[in-house]
């Protein structure tokens, strides 16, 4: 399929240059990083930009660096970059696992974490990890910079809090306490499938439990009732069965081409229990 609509292609080397282009074109411009979502949208004529701004030449956006206890992941960092980082694997196991379940290698080599949240489809694999780690999104406009909490980021299906003249510089994560994690993704097959339902699970030795869902509501979200119910409790099978019954009140899945709402709800309960089992087994100093 050809891309029918013409656009200008820019490849700025400085953040400032990119911001100038953005303030010039506003909503008529699109940022291009990995392009795995953007090029499909262009082919299908779902968007019709006048300019594409390729940010892959902007060096500060390629950085991944630890400053004090905060890790900054530049906007150009791909899922493959995250998977190859020992720091991500050791300190942010949930983000590592979520990244490993994004599509297939050919996509992960190109698709960026930042692009994933900018596309903001409800099924995005990276959201449960970012919500659980309380990520912050750093954005810049011509004269300002601001930080948006990931909890305020997703405003609707394919909608985010980003303004049209703003550029995401990267995502910042505070190093969490030692914990174990599991991301359970329901898909039809491995490699290249959108989640029909997904749940991220975080467990630590202080019996702090965190949960976040994707693909079972208009936006990915933390599951606060479930967290409050289990808070500081010793986990056993009976408790998990009770907790699973809270899940339907935390999610609002739809029936679509990929799965029925009832099936999604049922599988969220199953995946919650399955994921808890995995997370508790590998918790350091947790269950023997």
């Amino acid at each position: 399929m050809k891309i029918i609509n013409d656009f200008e292609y820019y490849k700025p080397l400085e953040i400032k240059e990119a911001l100038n282009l953005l303030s010039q074109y506003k909503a008529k411009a699109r940022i291009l990083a990995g392009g795995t979502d953007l090029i499909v949208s262009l082919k299908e004529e779902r968007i019709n930009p006048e300019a594409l701004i390729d940010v892959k030449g902007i060096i500060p956006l390629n950085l991944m660096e630890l400053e004090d206890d905060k890790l900054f992941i530049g906007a150009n960092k791909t899922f493959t970059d995250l998977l190859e980082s020992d720091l991500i694997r050791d300190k942010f196991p949930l983000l590592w696992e979520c990244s490993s379940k994004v599509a297939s290698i050919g996509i992960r080599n190109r698709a960026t974490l930042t692009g994933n949240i900018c596309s903001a489809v409800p099924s995005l694999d990276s959201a449960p990890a970012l919500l659980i780690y309380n990520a912050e999104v750093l954005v810049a406009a011509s004269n300002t910079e601001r930080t948006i909490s990931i909890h305020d980021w997703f405003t609707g299906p394919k909608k985010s809090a980003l303004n049209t003249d703003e550029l995401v510089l990267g995502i910042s994560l505070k190093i969490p306490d030692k914990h174990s994690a599991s991301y359970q993704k329901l898909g039809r097959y491995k490699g290249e499938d959108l989640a029909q339902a997904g749940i991220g699970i975080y467990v630590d030795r202080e019996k702090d439990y965190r949960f976040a869902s994707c693909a079972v509501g208009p936006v990915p979200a933390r599951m606060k009732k479930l967290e409050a119910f289990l808070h500081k409790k010793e986990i056993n099978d009976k408790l998990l069965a009770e907790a699973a019954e809270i899940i339907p009140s935390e999610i609002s899945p739809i029936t679509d081409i990929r799965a029925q709402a009832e099936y999604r709800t049922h599988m969220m309960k199953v995946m919650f229990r399955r994921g808890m089992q995995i997370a508790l087994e590998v918790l350091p100093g947790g269950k023997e």
Partner: protein
Amino acid sequence: MKQIKLNLNGEIRSVLVDPTETLLDVLRDKLGIKSPKCGCDRGDCGACNVLLNGRSVRSCLILAIETDGQEVVTVEGISQKGLSRVQETMINKNAFQCGFCAPGIIISATELLNNNPHPTLEEIKEALSGNLCRCTGYLPILEAVRESLEGGKNE
């Protein structure tokens, strides 16, 4: 139209591209490289895989203009000095039927073996999970990659 220069299979090539043209279209229609195939045209099937700076990518999801100054390798490049070992075992195992998916799978397998010369079966499956094959049921393809590991080096 803009003139871009890329290293294609070890050779510097210059080509005039429109910003809307994908790498897949430019490779096939302007540069005479026919191994990448257009299957789904949306990144799902892996038939258009090429190596961009050593990484497998979907050439249908990349604009040709983005590859200015980059290095692209296709199956033509991999086979420049004769078939690679994994290509040979694919022939021996009769790994493909129609062959449409073969170039994409060879690219994925080559990337895997470059990074990990002794992959487990699970790792092979993971590496090839983004390549769809509608003929074989995958078994002879997986066997061919496994057989390429026995003895000899993967080059």
